[in-house]
């Protein structure tokens, strides 16, 4: 192994192995590793130290570089994904090119996952040896600066998206807010009150919604979806598909004259916003405070459309209808049955993904009889039922037309359950108690709340629990076995019987009630996987989007410039969601205000002399960074387009493509290194 770099100046390596307190030292004999590395050619000094990432640790590196004229630095500590940047900076501060540094992962990949101290130490030596051999081949590199486009895309118009968009817009940044539904507001817009303060969801949300609607810095596209994402941090190119609502949003004043004038006198189509409890017409507006205040025509049911679709996916106009709505609209002429999908293309520098969650499908727990017994409801249905603007105007009238005298609320439906979802949905305990309160308020019924554990971590949450106890809600500890209409006793007749083991009392109880409410848990959106691919993110095993680091980068993803906010990252309540949305916005602002990002200089380039022009590499580049120059009969790589995957390097049949930071000689010497040590 040569200790010459490019046959020129002698290589002088400084090696540091970090104890990371006990995290590493407990399983790896750090002094021994240091002792071993000291013997290798090119190594000038070899130290072990308690916390390399600490201030003194970094100073140590800098001093040594000066004092011992080091020109290479290797640190064996945690994952480079965590601290590579830290030590590169230290190396630079010491007066070296930051890329004369290499990092060895002996914590995540070693001390934390192994149990035999001897083996772990051997492994650490091998990995360190490899780094020593590798770093000798490192070359001085310049980081590439990429301009940041100050515009931001926010995907999802729930409270998370709304807050993030507002924060950025108020900071003077251009924001594109894209929402799939006809109106922003998300789940929160459907809630009646919010725990624990019981202030009305609409009252706190709708002002923010209308602000968004009219904010000069925000372009709001509802009833729209992101269809394509190209580029990288700083310069994304986005395609958004705007679905036709058959109303020109610019002409529609939101007067809603068209709705009463519709040929359908009575609403007769299931109303999504009210969870199907209410009915709407073919022309409708989701809810009174919907933003934007623009009605929508549903071509599936509107008489002016044929069933089925045109080849291009657009709806088929039949012109069979009298079009009374058009008359009602008058000379506003906002109604346009010929609308088709519009594809908008925008350029942004950062993206905030706030696509939210979906509630657990109660029919997946048949033992609770949802869909079988008509008086079994989901929590979200109750939210609408108790809501003044809901289908019943706030009166709790069951599907059988009666008002309930006794109500059972079952917690953890589709949460903490190995048959469905293992995780705790975090909000159910609280909203169940909120609903208990509201139902009692509306009906004065007896409320039974069936819980496994009462989870109330949060400001004023435990107090809210005590308040409910005082209000006389009956809390029964135990997972409900089943909900049945099979009466054993006269008093059970015509009722829904909740069978549960009361684990506090220690016996099985049968509690007859009129109404059952299922506190359904939170799940990833049905299309979370597609969205993940669209934005090149990862999902956790449960399907929520994966943050870059659970503690230190909770709103970042593995793709630079793409951030997470709200329940798409995992179940959380409104305060947490808003906080996270703010954090995501802040992350974006950091880049925007710096104006550029420094990119890993791990791009590839072609050795012009050596390239034979065989064209084998050209089809390989997904970014079309490689082009063939007909006049010179050579291939060339456009460094600006190259993302540094190295695929072309691995495939060049004459070894004429080089990748910075991951070149053949670096990797071969790394292989030699790990194998050199037995």
């Amino acid at each position: 192994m040569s200790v010459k770099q490019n046959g020129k100046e002698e290589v002088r390596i400084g090696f540091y192995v970090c104890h990371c307190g006990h995290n590493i030292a407990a399983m790896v004999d750090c002094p021994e590793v240091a002792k071993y590395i000291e013997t290798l050619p090119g190594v000038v000094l070899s130290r072990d130290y308690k916390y390399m990432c600490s201030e003194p640790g970094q100073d140590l590196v800098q001093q040594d570089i000066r004092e011992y004229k080091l020109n290479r630095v290797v640190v064996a500590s945690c994952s480079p994904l965590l601290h590579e940047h830290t030590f590169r900076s230290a190396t630079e501060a010491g007066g070296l090119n930051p890329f004369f540094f290499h990092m060895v992962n002996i914590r995540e990949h070693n001390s934390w996952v192994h149990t035999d101290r001897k083996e772990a130490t051997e492994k650490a030596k091998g990995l360190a040896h490899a780094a020593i051999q590798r770093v000798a081949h490192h070359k001085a590199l310049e980081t590439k600066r990429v301009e940041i486009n100050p515009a931001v895309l926010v995907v999802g118009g729930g409270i998370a998206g709304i807050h993030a968009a507002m924060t950025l817009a108020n900071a003077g940044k251009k924001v594109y807010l894209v929402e799939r539904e006809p109106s922003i507001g998300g789940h929160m817009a459907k809630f009646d009150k919010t725990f624990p303060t019981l202030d009305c969801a609409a009252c706190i949300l709708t002002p923010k919604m209308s602000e968004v609607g009219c904010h000069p810095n925000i372009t709001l596209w509802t009833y729209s979806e992101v269809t394509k994402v190209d580029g990288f941090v700083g310069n994304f190119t986005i395609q958004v598909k705007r679905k036709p609502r058959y109303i020109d949003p610019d002409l529609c004043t939101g007067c809603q004259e068209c709705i009463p004038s519709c040929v359908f006198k009575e609403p007769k189509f299931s109303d999504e916003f009210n969870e199907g409890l209410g009915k709407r017409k073919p022309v409708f507006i989701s809810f009174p405070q919907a933003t934007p205040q623009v009605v929508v025509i549903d071509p599936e049911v509107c008489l002016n459309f044929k069933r089925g679709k045109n080849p291009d996916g657009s709806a088929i106009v039949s012109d069979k209808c009298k079009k009374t709505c058009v008359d009602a609209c008058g000379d506003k002429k906002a109604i346009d049955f010929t609308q088709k999908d519009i594809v908008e293309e925008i350029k942004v520098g950062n993206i905030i993904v706030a696509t939210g969650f979906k509630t657990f499908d109660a029919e997946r727990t048949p033992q609770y009889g949802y869909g079988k017994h008509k008086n079994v409801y989901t929590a979200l249905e109750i939210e609408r039922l108790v809501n003044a603007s809901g289908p019943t105007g706030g009166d709790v009238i069951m599907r059988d037309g009666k008002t309930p005298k006794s109500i059972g609320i079952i917690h953890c439906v589709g949460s903490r359950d190995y048959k469905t979802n293992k995780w705790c949905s975090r909000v159910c305990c609280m909203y169940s108690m909120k609903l208990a309160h509201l139902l009692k308020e509306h009906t004065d019924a007896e409320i039974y709340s069936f819980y496994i554990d009462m989870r109330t971590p949060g400001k004023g949450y435990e107090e809210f629990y005590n308040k409910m106890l005082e209000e006389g809600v009956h809390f029964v500890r135990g997972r409900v076995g089943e909900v049945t209409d099979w009466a054993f006793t006269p008093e059970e007749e015509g009722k829904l019987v909740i069978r549960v083991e009361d684990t506090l009392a220690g016996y099985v109880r049968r509690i007859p009630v009129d109404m059952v409410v299922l506190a359904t848990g939170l799940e990833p959106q049905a299309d979370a996987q597609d969205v993940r691919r669209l934005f090149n993110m990862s999902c956790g095993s449960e399907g929520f989007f994966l943050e870059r680091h659970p503690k230190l980068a909770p709103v970042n993803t593995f793709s630079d410039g793409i951030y997470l906010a709200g329940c798409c990252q995992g179940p959380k309540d409104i305060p947490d969601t808003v906080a996270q949305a703010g954090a995501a916005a802040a992350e974006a602002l950091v880049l925007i205000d710096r104006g550029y990002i420094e990119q890993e200089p791990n791009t590839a380039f072609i050795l012009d002399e050596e390239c034979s022009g065989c064209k084998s590499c050209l089809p390989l580049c997904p970014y079309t960074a490689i082009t063939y120059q007909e006049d010179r009969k050579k291939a060339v790589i456009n460094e600006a387009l190259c993302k540094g995957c190295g695929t072309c390097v691995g495939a060049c049949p004459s070894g004429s493509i080089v990748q910075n930071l991951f070149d053949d000689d670096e990797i071969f010497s790394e292989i030699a290194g790990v194998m050199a040590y037995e």
Partner: protein
Amino acid sequence: MDKATQDAFNTGNALANAAYQSKKRNVTIDPVTRLEGHGKIDIYLDDKGDVERAYFQVPELRGFEVFSLGRPAEDMPQITSRICGVCPTAHHMAATKALDDLYKVEPTSAGRKIRELVYNAFTLEDHALHVFVLGGPDFIVGPEAPPELRNIVGVIGKVGLEAGRKVISMRRRVREIISYFGGKVVHPVLGLPGGVSKALKKEDLPKFQQLATDGVEFAEWTLQIFKDIVLKNPDYVKMILSDTYTHKTCYMGMVDEQNKVNFYDGKLRVVDCDGKEVCKFTAQQYREFVSEHVEPWSYMKFTFLKQRGWKGFVEGPDTGIYGVGPLARLNAADGMATPKAQAACEEYFKTLGGKPVHHTLATHWARVVEMIQAAERIEQLLNDPEITSPDVRRAPTSVPKEGMGVVEAPRGTLFHHYQTDERGCITMANMVVATGNNAARIAMSVERAAKGLIKEGHVTEGLLNKVEMAFRAYDPCLGCATHALPGHMPLMAHIYDHRRQLVQVLEQS
């Protein structure tokens, strides 16, 4: 890639090699087994000091048949040509013909003619090489001449630099025909089942036609030189006719419909030592007529006529041993296929006392006669209008299974035999080569020469040259014989007394 990188990578191999070399630092070979790429003769004397037994050994084996296993059949013409760089075209062509048979496809007429053109060009230049560079010097410069002169340089000295240039440039020009179609002269690539890879462009025809005419002239010129230098010298003629260089064996050669000599295609005809036809068969039938015998003291296998069986190294009316090559081809055929060659052939038999000719050294003469036929055939083919047809290949369609191919290599008959799976990958490859066919006769010639030249333990320095002449006449390609050592191989002899003690080691000169 910078120096450091090179080093970094090479460490691995360097280590392996170092480990290896450290272990093998001081390689020394018992002088008795040292061969240095020589053909080796072990001569054992009896108590009277006369030759009791002489072993002619071929010392290496590469095993092409085995490492051809699993290869796509179409690679065989190129793989097997590496058996021998002196006669690559012979193996290339035998393999190509085996592919025709394997894929059951007839080459197009033009394709066949181009193959035959290339093959005759090869025969011409290879014979020329032997006459002027390998075997010929023995005569042209003279057997007694010092070794440093018995080579091309010596020949040039004898026939004059001009003639030397003529030989060299003629060979080069003839070889251009091969490289035109085959890309390379050594290890050409033209052969494919159903024809050849490349056609002859009309505009290139004239220069080759000129060459063809010169070729015939050159072949006749060569014959003249042979007559002037060899036949006019009574000692040489006496030596050719001497008992030492004479064996009565059978002879095998390829013949066309009219039983005339053909190098590229035809049936194989075998005559006995009285010139009577013993059998006539196609390549596909070779296993019914030809078998190989194994001796424990040589890597070379000894071929014999299956029906007659292996009777040891014996000659005479019922021997199973046969010769191949120019001498054998002329004996096995009813004459040459072209006029000038036929004339030369008749003179040859007249001078040597009729058919068949058993004098090994006459092979040199027969070789020159064949040069004339090759040259004439080239001329015929280049004047055939079809030679420039672009229709040089017919793609096979049938599923491959088994195929055999045979050609007359300059040194003699050469068989290739392959079996494949349905993908056309080799599952069995067998090759019976010219020198294998001659092996038994060579071994006998060598022993005969030894016996004739060593009496009462009196071994002369010149012995080896004489022995070697018996051996060189065959232009033996031991490379082919064992798919091992290359074309022409200097000799060395170890002589043991009746106590089996090594008394003398002879190298040439």
